[in-house]
């Protein structure tokens, strides 16, 4: 078997793994919140291990789906914009969510270290009605990083709207950034900059 054939075989394994991961996720409506987080992380880790140093475009796209499938982008967008969300029309909200989602998706495959750690421990989720917190700890060498997923139930599925890394909240960081930018310019100018940023990385809404 030559190397080209081997590479194609490897990519197929990754794709299948991801596909399996997606299947597992899709069927995970009844899973506990920590199971949801765990299964996605595992799927990503396995796919990365299989892909080795070279990740094809197809695999990259599928990774984006798996990684970001955990996030409730409409909820994250609503909370990040705060009162500015209330001032937006339904169409503006939809447009914002799409651009924001695309930007995060593009970014998510640039930082995969958190999935390549030695091991990750998962504590039982703290569930309060439709809200939950999943506390995980990523172990890499003698360094431990606590990652907390703040989740809620959407259509019987657990989705996260905040990821807190060692006390640093993703949602709060976005809140501060959007608030600062809108105060300095305007919502329209802020949205335009997001669109320009997306275009500059070769993406498009959606």
């Amino acid at each position, binding site marked *: 078997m030559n190397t080209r054939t081997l590479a194609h075989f490897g990519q197929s394994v990754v794709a299948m793994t991801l596909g399996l991961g997606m299947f597992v996720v899709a069927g995970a409506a009844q899973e506990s919140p920590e199971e949801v987080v765990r299964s996605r992380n595992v799927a990503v880790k396995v796919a990365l291990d299989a892909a080795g140093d070279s990740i094809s475009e197809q695999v990259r796209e599928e990774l984006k789906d798996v990684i970001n499938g955990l996030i409730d982008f409409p909820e994250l967008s609503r909370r990040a914009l705060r009162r500015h969300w209330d001032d937006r029309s339904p169409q503006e909200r939809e447009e914002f969510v799409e651009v924001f989602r695309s930007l995060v998706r593009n970014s998510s495959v640039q930082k995969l270290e958190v999935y390549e750690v030695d091991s990750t421990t998962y504590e039982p989720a703290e569930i309060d009605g439709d809200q939950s917190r999943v506390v995980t700890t990523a172990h890499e060498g003698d360094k431990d990083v606590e990652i907390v997923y703040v989740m809620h139930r959407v259509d019987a599925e657990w989705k996260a709207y905040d990821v807190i890394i*060692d006390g640093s909240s993703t949602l709060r960081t976005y809140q501060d950034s959007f608030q*600062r930018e809108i105060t300095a310019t305007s919502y329209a100018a802020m949205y335009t900059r*997001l669109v320009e940023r997306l275009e500059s990385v070769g993406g498009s809404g959606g």
Partner: protein
Amino acid sequence: MCRFVPGAYRWVLLLAAVATVAGGYLTSKLGLDSDLGALLPSDVPSVRALDEMQAEVGGAVSKLRVAFKSSDFPALLRLASDLKPRLEESEYVLFAQFENEVDFYKTNALLFLEPAELDSLYDAVQQAIDDEKQAVNPFMIDDLFGPPAGEPEEDGSDLEAWEATYSEYEPKPYFTNTDSTVLVMEVAAAQESVDLDFSGEMLEAVREIVTSFDPSRYASDVEVAYGGNIKNRIDEFATLKSDILGTGLYGISGVLLLMVLYFRSLVPPVLIAVSLGASLAWTFGITYLTIGQLNTITGFLFVVLFGLGIDYGVHAFARYRETRQAGGDQAAGLHDMVCETGRALTTTTFTTAAAFFSLLLMDFKGFSELGFITGLGLVFALIAMLFVLPALIVASERLGLLRIPQVEGKKLTFEPRPFQAARPLLIGGALVTMLALAGLSQVDFEYDFTDLRIVTPERQRFGELTRGVSSRSESPALVLAASADEAEAVEARVREGMRADTLTPTVDQVRSVYSMVPPDQEPRLRRIREIRELIEVENARDLLTGDDLDRLDRLEGYLRVDEAITFADVPSNEIRPFLTRTGEVGSFVFIYPSVALRDGRNSIRFSEDIGTITLPSGKVLHAASANLIIADLLRTVIREGKIAVVLSLLIVFLIVLADVRDVRETLMIMSPLVLGILWMGGLMFVLGMKLNLFNIVVLPSIVGIGVDTGVHIRHRYRDEGRGSLYFVLARTGPAVAVATLTTIVGYTGLMMASHPGLESIGKLAVIGLSATLATALLLLPALLEVADRKRT
């Protein structure tokens, strides 16, 4: 009067001699005050504040600065360290300083930040930590809203930005420039009131000490230069004195030469000069008794009055000579001189003197004292020419020193004929006047003092050497508060103004000795502890990398402060500038400008912002500084300049009207004056000249002086009758031309001055007098001709 002089010439000469000796003695005691503050009344708030400041804390603001330049900086430090104790032993020196107590600021810099600034610092540290944590977050978009395209990053919450903020409180270790090739030693005066004598002695003492250390022993390339406000005052005074002597010699020589050329003999110029010299002694003697000293502008009046007063002698003697050359005897000559020309001279003298005396109403002493001395000088000059000169003529003729032979054909009669040139002269004059008006409207006022100060080569070199040594302005304003609470209230008021004034801010910093001990230190210390804990809890040292880690290292040095500081902790070097003459800590406040005060407009805005400070208690305090005085000077001069010109024109109009008793005639006599001023304005525009604090005094002076020519020509014309204009121009024309030229030559002396402001006075006066002479000789005869034609 005409009969008295020949008979009593000995008594006249004796009386004049006594008065001259007395006047000369008093004149020799006249002082010279080169401070610009001497140009405002002493009750002006900024002047009073400056006087109080100098009495209370002269040493704090009066400094000599010694700059040492060398490529071997350690050698300069050794030199300065050796010099300092030796300088401080001198009776002239309060203290000498070349370094800052950096450790104090390094340790306590964060205590000087406002609580809100410490909150922002906390946020900046938190942000840096969060950024590192979020760097591994796949859901975090890096640098989401980076800087707009083409613009640099300007995030005030960045650690980098904050490092710039809190390190501002940390001064440089030494008074040095950016490349450490120059070290400056500041030497404070030991005396509270730093007058010129003390300043000169202090400078010499410091020079001797520095020379005795032989700086070249420390490094072969050491260059030493002296500066500071003490040195500047000495230089300004020396330059002014030198200018007075130099321009005086030049002006007087020029005037005498002109007279010798005109009279083609030595005797008349000598007789006139002696008479005038007597009048000047009387004038300046009275000036000593009334004012006591001369200022930057009146210091040059000797040569100006010489040029002005000589006119009377020229007119008077020319008339005497004319009568004698036509065959008249001594009595007839004296009669024509004193009773006929004398009458015109009296009118012109009182016209001119009244115009100058009207300036007594002004606050600006450049106007009021100039007006008084000049008016007085002119009156005394007239008296001298009508009494002393005739007596000298009689004495000279009796001694055989003066002989005026009759000249054949020299008649006092003429053939009447019309002045043919009237129409073309009026048309040409109208055209020139229109152009001049257009130019005059473009003439500006010069607010920038850069080109109006005396800058000696040494001062220029000192400025080049010390560029970049001090980040703060070296010309702060100072507010004398009565207590610590008052000083804090002043600081609070000024800071309030700084926050509110975002459009035209003029204040950079405000500090009192109490600024060195921040208020409310406990909340600040608490916040500083919270920042330390944040760094510890978050393991920031393990988290941050690269430049941010370096910044954190430096920040942790500042974060070690854990105790409030008191006055006792403040280094003595920092307290020293705030000590009063009794050695107590003074409750005064320094206010540093953020704008270049050499531009008078900035000085005015700075004065408007902090010149008067009203405290919450209702008490009003005034800030003191030479630049605030300049601001008041500028406001006064601009306000009074217009008034002075209008007032002098009005006075001249009324006096001429009283003389000729005809409004039309009066307007005609004044027309060359008014037109001459307009032409002067047009010439200013063409030559790119501006009005300034100094040359503005020329405007009312031109009004007073420029009317003379018109009065003389008109009087002679009325004496000789219709058709005599060519005769009048041939006879009186040269006399008035020479008279004006002597005045011009007197002012030309000022053009030789090193002081740019005084040079500008000379230039403008020369232009103005030339213009009024031209209009008087060209346009007035034309107007007289046309007016007479219309009558018949």
